[in-house]
């Protein structure tokens, strides 16, 4: 009996300690939840095509992605808010930003009895998130939605509880929409929210909004679509109300494509143009400029090249916009900088 047990234990030990097959490259990445659906799709597809490369991506938030890249505890990170100069300075290695997809952040809401798609002015969104507009039938909201019967219920504001690039994009937009927001709260992956409940990840926010009547939250477009949550139209810089879609996001990126800075850190919220969706953003992979492990380096570079070519074909299926061609061309050159 003892012998059998010992034998079993030995077999278990062997099985569990079996190292990965030689030649397998394991990459650990962490960061944004905003692009998590497309990234998990990409890493899955890439792994099927290249079984010896396995990329484990944990969507723990852009803030965490930046932090873990700074600390060097992951092979690369992902964030929807570009790293600030301070954050770059604190990283142990130089970090390169690689835009991957374009996405939109939409205001989603769950108002009992309201099935129409609502229009939100910039002032309305800023006011709601500042806690100054507290009821759904507030004139600022009502005037943009003639013909819709809005209840006099209190608005339940939902934001992110974790450090998030989606929050960065949203607060970036609000900072441009409202000076009061800019001075009082500012833009960052994690801010001191004047009001609201915190949900963890895009999943957490969409979950809270879905379950809480009279709630409003901001999430990535794909989460709204996948969960059948109503989302509203946002007024852009030209004054038009646009419901987020691929065309709107691509239009927002068009201007940026021409003047893309070398480090790719650019904000395209509130972009000019009648067709531009105002809460659009690039999202970036944060790749260390210096990777010591040759196998990992090659795997990452190969993935990046794949991502910019074949990978982009999956974007639209998941409601992310493709990268503009000039941006891709510029990025290909940056790959060479990863050493």
């Amino acid at each position, binding site marked *: 009996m003892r012998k059998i047990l010992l034998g079993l234990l030995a077999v278990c030990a062997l099985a569990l300690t079996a190292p990965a097959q030689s030649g397998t490259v394991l990459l650990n990445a962490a960061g944004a939840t905003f692009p998590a659906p497309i990234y998990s799709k990409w890493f899955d597809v890439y792994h099927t095509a290249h079984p010896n490369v396995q990329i*484990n991506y944990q*969507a723990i938030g852009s803030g965490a992605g930046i932090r873990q890249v700074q600390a*060097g505890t992951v092979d690369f990170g992902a964030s929807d808010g570009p790293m600030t100069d301070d954050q770059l300075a604190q990283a142990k290695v130089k970090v390169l930003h690689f835009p991957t997809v374009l996405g939109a952040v939409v205001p989603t809401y769950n108002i009992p009895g309201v099935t129409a798609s609502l229009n939100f002015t910039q002032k309305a969104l800023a006011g709601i998130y500042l806690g100054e507009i507290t009821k759904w039938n507030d004139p600022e909201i009502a005037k943009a939605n003639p013909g819709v019967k809005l209840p006099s219920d209190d608005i339940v504001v939902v934001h992110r509880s974790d450090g998030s690039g989606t929050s960065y994009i949203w607060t970036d937009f609000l900072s441009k929409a409202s000076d009061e927001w800019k001075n009082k709260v500012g833009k960052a992956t994690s801010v001191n929210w004047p009001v609201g409940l915190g949900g963890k990840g895009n999943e957490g926010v969409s979950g809270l909004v879905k379950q809480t009547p009279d709630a409003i939250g901001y999430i990535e477009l794909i989460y709204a679509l996948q969960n059948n949550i109503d989302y509203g139209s946002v007024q852009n810089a030209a004054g038009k109300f646009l419901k987020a879609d691929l065309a709107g996001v691509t239009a927002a990126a068009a201007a940026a494509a021409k003047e893309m800075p070398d480090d790719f850190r650019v904000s395209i919220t509130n972009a000019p143009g009648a067709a531009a969706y105002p809460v659009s953003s690039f999202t970036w992979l944060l790749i260390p400029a210096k990777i010591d492990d040759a196998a990992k380096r090659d795997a990452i570079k190969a993935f990046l090249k794949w991502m910019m070519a074949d990978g982009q074909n999956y974007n639209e299926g998941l409601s992310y916009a493709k990268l503009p061609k000039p941006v891709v061309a510029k990025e290909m050159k940056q790959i060479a900088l990863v050493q």
Partner: protein
Amino acid sequence: MKRLHIIWRKSLNVVMLSLTGVAAFGVVSILFLILGYFIYDGGRSLNWAFFTQLPKPTGEVGGGMANAIIGSFKLLLLAALFGLPVGLMAGVYLAEFGGKTFAYVIRYTVDLLNGVPSIVIGIFAYALAVQPVKHFSTLAGGFALAIMVVPITVRATEEFLRAIPNSLREGAMALGASKWKTIASVILPAASGGILTGMLLSLARVAGETAPLLFTALGNQYWSPGWSQPTSALPLMIYEYAISAYDDLHRQAWAAGLVLLGMVLLANLGCRLVMNRRGVRGV
């Protein structure tokens, strides 16, 4: 007047005593309620895929938690490997060798460690096992859990060793056995039932811990080969899926919850039954 007073006291008596009964059964019903929900919701969602497949990409329906089950198993193995021997040896020290002051200090420290919130243990494990080597790993997670296994094991070992009557020790020594031989071949085997149940209980407790794993094991979509890669674990998956917005993931969270709950309850049930049969009081 006196009659009224007596009637009042008598009725109060009946009312209060019945309330206590209500309270007791109320608490027990909550347990059955929780169990019931898990069996119902989790049972519906348990299928073969759950045990054999890897998680699907975000938003896609289906997939399973095979890697989380193995991950939990590996973490428990590490916790047992690192934590149980320390607990056992320390328990032996306290019961058989300890002097007055130092033993008191050790006991106090063990109690202290037992009371540390698991999130703080997570911070500690991150500082010691993740930061210096610059990556998250199964080892770091196992280390965190091992720390949590020690206090219960120490206590169980010490208590059950102490429960062995001195006559056994004296008898062995009278036959010429040295102290350590007495402990190893006579006392420990005699107390083994209780000690093993203590160990099993401590492992059952850490099996359900999530907080210490958040910054040590991190999580993994795939299989985690070896010991130095991040790994998935059942409690982590439950947490991640429960707060998500996808109904399919909720379904899987209930199933995982049922598996975890089942494991923990079975371990506890088993231990109690064994201990009751041996006529020893619970830990």
